[in-house]
């Protein structure tokens, strides 16, 4: 093997190595950018953000009490899901909704103006009517 052949081989190896490094870096960036976002629940009272919870990192049951104006709601958080445990609203629609893991339909307590919105990445539709 003469010197020029060796140089070509080294050059090829260098570019293969560079390509490998770039592929790995690109893959890491892609994973960071395009990873499936965690499902968050955002709790609002009267359109003011009360709390944001990453449902995928909840390790133990947690209760959030909302007592503002005349509202008295208790939100319970567990891993991957949320429910309105109790509320002093007249219809109890929010409580009857039960556990919710995500989706486009928020948990809403209209009389007490409490809304829990889900940031989900796996919705196959953009809105629900009816």
């Amino acid at each position, binding site marked *: 093997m003469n010197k020029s052949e060796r140089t070509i081989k080294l*050059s*090829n190896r260098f*570019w293969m190595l*560079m*390509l490998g490094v*770039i*592929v790995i870096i*690109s893959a890491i*960036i*892609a994973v960071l*950018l*395009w990873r499936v976002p965690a499902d968050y629940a955002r709790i*609002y009272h*009267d*359109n003011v953000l009360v709390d944001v919870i990453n449902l995928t990192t909840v390790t133990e049951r947690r209760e959030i009490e909302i007592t503002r104006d*005349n509202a008295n709601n208790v939100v319970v958080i567990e891993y991957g899901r949320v429910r309105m445990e109790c509320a*002093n*609203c*007249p*219809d109890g629609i929010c409580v009857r*909704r039960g556990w919710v893991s995500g*989706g*486009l*339909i*928020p948990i*809403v307590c*209209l*009389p*007490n*103006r409490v*809304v829990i*919105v889900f940031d989900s990445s796996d919705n*196959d*539709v*953009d*809105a*629900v*009517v*009816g």
Partner: protein
Amino acid sequence: MKRISLIIIIVMLLTLLSGCAERTVQLSETRLLMDTYGTITIHGDIDPELLDDAFALIEELEGLFSMTIEGSDVWRINNSGGEAVQVDARTIELITTGLEFAELSDGMFDITIGRLSRLWDFGAAASDIASLESRVPSVLTIKEARETINSDQMNVAENTVQIVNSDAWIDLGAIAKGFIADSVAELLIDRGVSGALIDLGGDVVAVGYRQDGTVWRIALQLPFGNPGERIGVVEVSGVAVVASGIYERQFEENGIIYHHILDPTTGMPVITDIVSATIVAENALIGEGLSTIAILVGSERALERFEQVQGFIGAVLVLDSGEVLTIGDVELIV
């Protein structure tokens, strides 16, 4: 080899950069408004404050059309003692459309239903109904409220509105959300969005396409099902999808469900063969009016009349038998 590697590197970088660029321009926000919640999603080359402006417009229009906000156009008309009241051009436009819907429905849809809808008060706050023995109004009060309903008693001029019967109240609640959703869509288009989805509690306007260039997918709620349980999906772009159902705002008393779509002839929640009506229309105002009218007049008359209505595209009607009827140009993907 060098060239191939360089091309691969450039392609990778471009792919990553194009992905980054697209991700930065989609915004979405949900807020409580008009006794419901609304979500606005926008994408394109957009001003970050556009969502705030859109919600501000909703608040401004609610301030004109609300029956309960003191000083609104509707409040002033209802409290004018029968005098003509000067109002915003948009209130005139909405009332005029409401009167056209009255004609289309042979008076079943009547915006002078205000006294009756206030009497039933399906949006009542806890404090207002806590002391009530029954949420169902008495026969006498229903009769009194029913007697004030007659849209023929309204005089609408270029910038004034008068209800001749000073006891009567107008309620634009059955069509205001549609008008507001359309107004928001116009604002967003004027401000350069590429695509938007305006969802005001069941009134959806789909502007353009989704960020990935595909059509918007709207699910139709299964009546009396769990939230999000669907009868199917419609795929749309550049139209409105609006649904009404007897399972939405309602309460149960002594085993009877009382829903919010009231029959002006009886004063009670209407009973027809439709439990849910979803309308696909050129705009949400037509969609909202027709979805309520469908439930008020039943499937036979809806089938007869809707295809002649300008701006109507299609409808999905769920009957009390469970049967699902489609009218016009709409495909329900099950």
